């Protein structure tokens, strides 16, 4: 379409500024909802994948392919971890134990905390140190070291060097018979899977075992594995499966794919349905606006045709008007969509046990491209009926009927 077609379409829209603004605002609202639905359709997946990748581990090894609460532990974990670590495709293995503990705060109140036991000999850690020191392979004396998250530090008014006493609660609801263990806070860390209200602490496996009254090397809930650079996680998974067929190894890619098929598919379906409805309303809005506009301008369009405007030219004018309405509305819909997504995100994050770092609405360039494509398609489809009216407009009959009326 040439510049003169765009300029003429712009002038035609500006002729009814109120109607054009209403149309643009309508498209902006529809576009914002569409944008959010597109972000939602893959947001959890993208965000979940980013969480899995965040600490640099790309393979997870478990004793069974079952949910965490029902999953057995990996028996003889030390031997298994050593064997996996020896594989040429594997760079690092971290054994993890997961449990709970209680701690008494300065106000005398009891706090439940999520306790992680982890190998402290590895370079990678399943948390990100924010302040203080990380866990070392051993302590030089005094209470064992503990890493805590900010929320726990704030609730208990802890600083690096503070001491606290934990009572283990690691047997899934049953109280531990082990005596309380005094810890010294080495540093503060961010744990990627923490929900906003979580109070989390991490200790070395040996100290976790003491707190929970367990043999620290006997078993593990999970191995976090980093594949060797150049080999890749798929090769590491294959080797682990070949080495220990009783264990279940999954790359991050596989975990995301499984979630995509089950847990997250609901979001995809909801977003597909809402996107379709949203687009349909956008289509109706533009079709109605353009049809009304074209109907009001029949005589004028017939006159333009009599003056020498081709059928193609007047049809393109209608299409250009649709594209302008949808284009301007579509651009406005992006900041509106971002604001709306943030608001919805804050509502959804009020749900329990949603990691703070997990986002329902995650931006991807392809969401922007899909948004633009769907809106462009809507503009074209919405313009089809008024374009048809214009293309089939009989010049002489229209001029004659205008004279009569």
């Amino acid at each position, binding site marked *: 379409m040439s510049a003169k077609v765009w300029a003429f379409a712009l002038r035609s829209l500006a002729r009814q500024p109120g109607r054009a603004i209403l149309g643009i605002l309508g498209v902006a609202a529809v576009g914002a909802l569409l944008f959010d639905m597109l972000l939602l359709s893959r947001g959890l997946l993208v965000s979940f994948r980013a969480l899995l990748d965040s600490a640099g581990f790309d393979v997870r090894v478990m004793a069974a392919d079952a949910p965490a609460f029902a999953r057995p532990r990996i028996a003889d974990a030390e031997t298994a971890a050593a064997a996996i670590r020896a594989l040429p495709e594997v760079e690092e293995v971290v054994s993890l134990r997961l449990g709970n503990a209680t701690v008494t705060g300065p106000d005398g109140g009891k706090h439940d905390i999520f306790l992680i036991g982890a190998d402290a000999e590895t370079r990678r850690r399943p948390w990100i140190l924010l302040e203080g020191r990380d866990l070392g392979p051993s302590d030089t004396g005094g209470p064992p070291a503990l890493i805590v998250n900010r929320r726990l530090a704030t609730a208990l008014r802890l600083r690096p060097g503070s001491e606290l006493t934990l009572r283990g609660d690691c047997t899934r609801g049953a109280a531990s018979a082990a005596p309380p263990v005094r810890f010294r806070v080495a540093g503060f860390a961010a744990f990627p899977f923490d929900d906003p209200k979580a109070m989390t602490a991490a200790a070395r496996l040996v100290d976790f075992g003491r707190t929970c009254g367990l043999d620290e090397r006997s078993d593990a809930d999970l191995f976090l594995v980093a594949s060797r650079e150049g080999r890749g996680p798929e090769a590491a998974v294959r080797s682990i499966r070949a080495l220990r067929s009783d264990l279940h190894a999954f790359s991050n890619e596989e975990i995301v794919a499984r979630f995509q098929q089950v847990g997250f598919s609901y979001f995809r379906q909801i977003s597909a349905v809402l996107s379709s409805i949203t687009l349909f309303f956008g289509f109706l809005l533009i079709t109605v606006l353009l049809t009304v506009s074209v109907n009001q301008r029949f005589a004028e369009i017939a006159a333009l045709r*009599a003056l020498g405007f081709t059928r193609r030219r007047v049809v393109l004018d209608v299409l250009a008007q649709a594209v302008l309405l949808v284009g301007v509305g579509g651009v406005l819909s992006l900041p509106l969509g971002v604001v709306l997504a943030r608001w919805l995100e804050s509502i959804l994050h009020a749900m329990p046990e949603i990691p703070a770092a997990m986002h329902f609405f995650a931006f991807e360039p392809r969401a922007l491209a899909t948004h633009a494509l769907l809106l462009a398609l809507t503009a074209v489809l919405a313009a089809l009926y008024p374009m048809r009216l214009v293309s089939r407009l009989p010049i002489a009959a229209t001029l004659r009927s205008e004279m009569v009326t």
Partner: protein
Amino acid sequence: MSPPVVEARGVTRTFPMPAGPVVAVRDLSVTIAAGEFVSICGPSGCGKSTLLHILGCVDAPSSGALLVDGRDVSTLGDAERSALRLSKIGFVFQRFFLLPMLTAAENVELPQAEAGVTRGERRRRTSALLDYVGLAHRAHHRPSQLSGGEAQRVAIARALANRPRLLLADEPTGELDQATGQQIVGLFERVHADGTTVVVVTHDPAIAARTPRMLSMRDGRIDDGASR
């Protein structure tokens, strides 16, 4: 010898209606030579506007042939007919049909832009045309700010924008008072005097009396007895 500007040969135009077909123009032949100033008059419904639409290539006859500059236009497609209208035929309507969102100058520029005239040439030609119709001082006014006579003069300037050989006007004074109508007819006389062929449809005998040739229509035919 140059061919006639437009020639209708035995044209008939029938409109299908629920109550049966209505014949608006019936086996009519007419030749308009270059440089003529012709009025077509007759009572309402006699087919004069339909004939004008056929002569202006905005309507196609049901049968018969139409030649513009000696070329049969019956078989032309929409794009070719549009190009023909754009370059060779100017239209003036009873209700002006100026675009309300454009100024007088922009309305006159519109068909020129469509014909691919350069911006500089458009400006120059538009300025000359508005001056020609006596509205140079109204160039930047919108149609809503013009009187009926001024709007019709802008419409005439727009019709002349691509220097057509043939100017067709359908009841151009129908919306105007008598004095203003006479001024518009005076403008057509001037356009004719400057070399453009002009055909005006009117039901006003006073206007028809001012044209050198008058075609009187009745029941879709030219009444030779009443024509001159």
